[in-house]
């Protein structure tokens, strides 16, 4: 019996990896997605940083948080509705693997893409802006946990029972841009009014930004351990709505 469970676990992990590799080939390693992933954070960074009094190193911390957030949550909302529309999602749902395995695979591929693009942003930060890392391990942990958390956040929208990617575009864009402005990315947490800061604490991006500040600048407003814990917890918590919505979609016929 124990062997059966171990074999099942091994199978599920292997299947999650198969989903990751397939999604990476089919959706992420496409010219449009690569261009978006690499350029979008820089566009946003320069849009909100030019002509502002901000040190280069501080800018790198912001760039890393932006990159992790935007690339991890970019494709997740659209891939599943798109796969539903062309019928390939049925292939995954009918396969002998659990729904959790499928969703973990979908989350992990978005996270891996974000980790890759974040590494590129770091290289740009080090080479172009001369940034140094105060606590490299915090950067690694923050990028990994943040990527998983934000990818799972994107998956919530991808799990809305619909076959039309356009249906999820508006809510996902609204939420992502909303989080961007309330999370201490453009207005540092310390400069926020108390009410705004309270709202900021509800956003996982706040903790990712704070963690990047610790990692790059060597200082942040919150404890880095709290930042890591919140990113881990939010990543787990964000997996719950997709499971619930998939079960609802199975009842509704999506």
């Amino acid at each position, binding site marked *: 019996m124990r062997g059966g469970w171990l074999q099942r676990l091994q*199978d599920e992990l*292997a*299947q999650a990896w*198969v*989903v990751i*590799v*397939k999604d990476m*080939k*089919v959706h992420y390693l*496409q010219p449009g997605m690569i261009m978006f992933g690499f350029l979008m954070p820089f566009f946003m960074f320069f849009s909100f940083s030019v002509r502002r009094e901000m040190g280069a190193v501080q800018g790198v911390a912001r760039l890393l948080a932006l990159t992790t957030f935007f690339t991890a949550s970019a494709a997740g909302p659209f891939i599943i509705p798109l796969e539903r529309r*062309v*019928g*390939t999602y*049925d*292939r*995954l*749902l*009918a*396969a*002998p*693997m659990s729904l959790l395995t499928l969703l973990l695979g979908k989350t992990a591929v978005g996270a891996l893409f974000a980790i890759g693009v974040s590494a590129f942003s770091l290289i740009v930060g080090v080479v172009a802006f001369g940034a140094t890392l105060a606590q490299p391990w915090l950067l690694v942990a923050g990028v990994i946990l943040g990527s998983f958390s934000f990818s799972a956040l994107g998956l919530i929208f991808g799990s809305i029972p619909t076959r039309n990617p356009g249906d999820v575009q508006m809510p996902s864009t609204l939420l992502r841009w909303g989080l961007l402005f309330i999370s201490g990315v453009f207005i540092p947490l310390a400069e926020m009014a108390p009410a705004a800061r309270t709202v900021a604490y509800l956003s996982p991006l706040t903790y990712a930004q704070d963690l990047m500040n610790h990692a790059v600048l060597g200082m942040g407003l919150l404890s880095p351990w709290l930042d890591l814990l919140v990113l881990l917890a939010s990543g787990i918590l964000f997996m719950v709505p997709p499971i619930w919505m998939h*079960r609802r979609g*199975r*009842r*509704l*016929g999506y």
Partner: protein
Amino acid sequence: MNHAIEVNSLTKVYGPPDSGVLAVDHINFEVRQGEVFGFLGPNGAGKTTTQRMLTTLLEPTEGRIVIYGHDLARDAYPVKRQMGLVPEESNVYTELTAWDNLMFTAQLYRVPRAERAERARQLLETFGLWEKRNVKAEDFSKGMRRRLSIAMAIIHRPTLLFLDEPTPGLDVQSARAIRDLIRQLNAEGTTIFLTTHQIEEANQLCDRVAIINHGRIAAIDTPERLKAAFRRVQSVEVALEPDGQTHGEPLAALPGVMTTVKMGDKWRLYTEDPSALLPQVMDYARVNSLKVISLSTLGPSLEDVFLELTGQQVGTVRHGMQEEKPRRRGMKGQMGGGR
């Protein structure tokens, strides 16, 4: 165990159970191991909904599905391992090559590493896609995608294969190749659940067929027994020269003719007594100085049975209306387990 699939009181309501749309209405049937089971019905009858419930893609509102002894609601995993699914749309990954599509599916179904490449090679050769193995599926024709889709569904050698409308839209050669493959898979022991609205395909392939209409099973039986139950929809088919629409009215007026249908250059006259009608047709030709190019009697086709059971009239042109026949008269003995 004799049954691959057992379905009891299966029901699907889209929307709220009390006010939603009833797509499948308490159907019951069994599929025997090793048979080709046809699931026929007009568009919107509930075919695809039923198949999606059988393949775990849709949750039933009521009822029970047991496949190979496993209750699908509680123990779907072992069933999924033995199941292959070819949906109506060829759901291949167009961004991947044919080879990568097959490798992905083989890995997903945990086909042993040592066997994956050999099975993929065999399938690509069988389906005539070996030369195109490194071409992305986006460059494939509809028929090639269909063949690849089927290859992906059987690379893990399922014992139960669901096919949803496998041949519509394909050229004759591709459709024939797929039918041959279905026969071959069945001969090797695979149970086939074939959802189709192509009556002749079901007639050629299926050991038994279920006809579903408005979410209910209208009949389940072998194609020949279903036809035998509809002896009253026999017909005489005649080709006359010169041909023309003008023959419709007088042919329909011949004694015993229930319906006339123009089928290409032929007229099909539905009757309960073809032997009595034959001389009438010859007389009509002689009196009007027409040449009889061909004349034959036909038993009821599965299409006729299907049309009768789904409440559609046989043929599209009806002349000289006879008294409307009650539907499914005398069929009780032939009905299957459906309600």
